[in-house]
């Protein structure tokens, strides 16, 4: 059997390795996706005051620090048995919408668009954000940088720092915003709404306007029939910050809806000997293996899953686009992996609209920022939607609030099994017997997981030298037959 190794993966946050095992005839037998894992976080946290964790967890990951800060903030609220006042909740959400805006813009224009605007098998030297800008125009590139920067400015204003956020404290937030600052955010959020509408239209024009791309999305080796998970509000609308976790089956029927503190009744994690990263699955179904279909216990927690698991979006333009997507793709739920890009842009609209709603809310400049603390409960769970999946923080403390134990299920970990399955399906569909495996083929395999916007910063950021992609063909004895390198 031959082995193909893609290591490290390009345009994936963190660094991973894909190993593709080939039969002697060149067809794909299996695919393994591996990432190294950071160690010792739990030990690092043990014995610290639990209220320090929201600031510590922002240093786990430079990509989604705001998500960890929010999940952590909610977990410490629970530990102290306290509910933040409305102004504090709204400020947290306002910060969080800006966090989604900046992240979703970066993913679409820097990571997703090169495959569609420039082309999945185009020259890799051009298949990047520069190639995108050369196609859509410099003014769009300038706008991408500008809107992303503005979102960061809002985060820095409300969060105290755009990356190392310090706003959350047990029972609320440390500071509020003034009327003048609110007026400024309103103007900025209006800009987000316009830019997000433009981005969805660009996707429709470039992707849906190209029959080949539509064919790749709907009929290529990129579909995966799994259950869908997402946080929903009381009306079952998508919510990034709060609510209950809803899981719908492969047909769209509700399987479970649970509160954050019930997650251990529904989710269990599995260890595989070939991976450092755990594989969460639906506990009540039980582990059935890496299989698709209604009987599987594997689920996805992605932008598309969030839309699948909900009954709609809580803002008007996003709702309209939600309805349009399902109408075009044949109804709910959608299992086309590459439709995650479309779903992400609909979420961008929602985040922009909700950012504006919150900025216009009369309570956003309120002065009651923190509720009195209750008795230390000793255990707390906080769940939010990170850009790349449902994020769970679970803390245990002693009766003085000193940390005894920590458990995190990060966004991408939810999708670990699904990513492995998507890669295998893409590799099996794209690598045929006796064919030459080109760089373009490799990129199309990578597209299968890039759609998940996977981020392994929580798990890795070791980089052994130049960032490159390397494919190694080996014979059964391990002798290298051929190497393809791509910088």
């Amino acid at each position, binding site marked *: 059997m031959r082995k193909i190794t893609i290591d490290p993966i390009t345009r994936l*946050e963190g660094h991973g390795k894909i190993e593709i095992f080939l039969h002697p005839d060149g067809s794909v037998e299996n695919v393994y996706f591996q990432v190294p894992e950071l160690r010792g976080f739990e030990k690092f946290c043990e014995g610290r005051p639990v209220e320090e964790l929201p600031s510590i967890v922002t240093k786990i990951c430079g*990509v989604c620090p705001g998500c960890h800060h929010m999940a952590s903030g909610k977990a410490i609220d629970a530990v102290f048995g306290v509910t933040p006042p409305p102004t504090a909740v709204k400020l947290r959400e306002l910060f969080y919408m800006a966090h989604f805006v900046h*992240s979703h813009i970066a993913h679409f224009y820097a990571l997703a668009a090169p495959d569609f605007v420039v082309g999945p098998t185009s020259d890799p030297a051009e298949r990047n954000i520069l190639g995108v800008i050369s196609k859509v125009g410099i003014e769009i590139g300038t706008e991408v940088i500008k809107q992303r920067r503005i979102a960061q400015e809002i985060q820095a204003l409300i969060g105290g720092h755009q990356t190392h956020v310090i706003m959350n404290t047990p029972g609320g937030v440390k500071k509020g915003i003034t009327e003048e600052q609110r007026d400024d955010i309103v103007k900025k959020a209006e800009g987000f709404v316009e830019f997000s509408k433009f981005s969805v239209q660009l996707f429709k024009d470039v992707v849906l306007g190209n029959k080949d791309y539509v064919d790749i999305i709907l009929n290529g080796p990129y579909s995966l029939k799994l259950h869908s998970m997402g946080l929903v509000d009381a009306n079952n609308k998508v919510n990034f910050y709060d609510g209950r976790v809803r899981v719908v089956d492969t047909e769209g029927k509700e399987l479970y809806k649970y509160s954050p503190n019930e997650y251990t009744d529904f989710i269990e994690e599995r260890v595989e000997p070939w991976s450092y990263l755990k594989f969460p699955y639906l506990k009540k179904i039980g582990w059935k293996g890496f299989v698709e279909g209604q009987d599987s216990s594997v689920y996805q927690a992605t932008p598309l899953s969030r839309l699948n698991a909900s009954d709609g979006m809580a803002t008007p333009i996003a709702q309209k686009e939600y309805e349009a997507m399902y109408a075009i793709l044949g109804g709910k739920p959608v299992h086309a992996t590459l439709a995650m890009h479309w779903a992400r842009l609909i979420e961008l609209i929602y985040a922009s609209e909700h950012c504006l709603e919150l900025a216009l809310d009369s309570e956003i400049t309120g002065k009651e920022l923190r509720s009195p603390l209750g008795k230390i409960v000793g255990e707390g769970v906080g769940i939010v939607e990170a850009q790349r999946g449902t994020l769970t923080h679970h803390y245990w403390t002693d009766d003085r609030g000193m940390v005894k134990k920590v458990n995190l299920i990060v966004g991408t970990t939810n999708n670990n099994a699904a990513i492995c399955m998507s890669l295998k399906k893409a590799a099996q569909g794209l690598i045929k017997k006796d064919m030459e495996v080109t760089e373009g083929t490799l990129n199309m395999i990578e597209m299968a997981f890039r759609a998940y916007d996977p981020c392994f910063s929580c798990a890795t*950021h070791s980089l052994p030298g130049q960032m490159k992609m390397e494919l190694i063909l080996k014979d059964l004895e391990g002798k290298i037959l051929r190497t393809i390198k791509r910088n």
Partner: protein
Amino acid sequence: MTSFAERSGKILVLGIGNEILTDDGIGVRLVDDLQAKCFSAEIVFDKGTVGGLEILEIIQGYREVLFLDAIKTNEGKPGEIYHMDLSDFLETSHLSNLHDVSFIEAIRLGRELGFDLPEKLHIFAVEIVEDMVFSINFTAEIEKQYPVILDTAEHFIRSMIEMNEPVESPV
């Protein structure tokens, strides 16, 4: 964040890394220590976590930028220092963030979009041992080498300041 007007003609020394991941935080600690040693109105010290598009916002307007970062190569010795610029760029731990564009792409993009980018970009990368374990302490190897690393960085910054000083015109 300093305004673009305040940055004009100045040098930015930017330490990047994660200070709770053992040796990974070397760039950040260097900035903390160098700030006390190399006071100059011409220098701004700052810290960051990742590269990508954010780098463009951080470095715009400065005349020169020195990145202090960690690196892991296959054959390097702990504490070994690499001084690089864009022409011989070797990826360090944080300058490229794979959720985002690469460092080189970010610079090319900035130039394409007409940003006021520094004339010179220096990368001062320290070969580290461990960046996968949470700890606020360096490994023994890096801790032992740290005074030499700090001296080397200080010397380099002083040479940058000297090069930056305007030459008095002969009367």
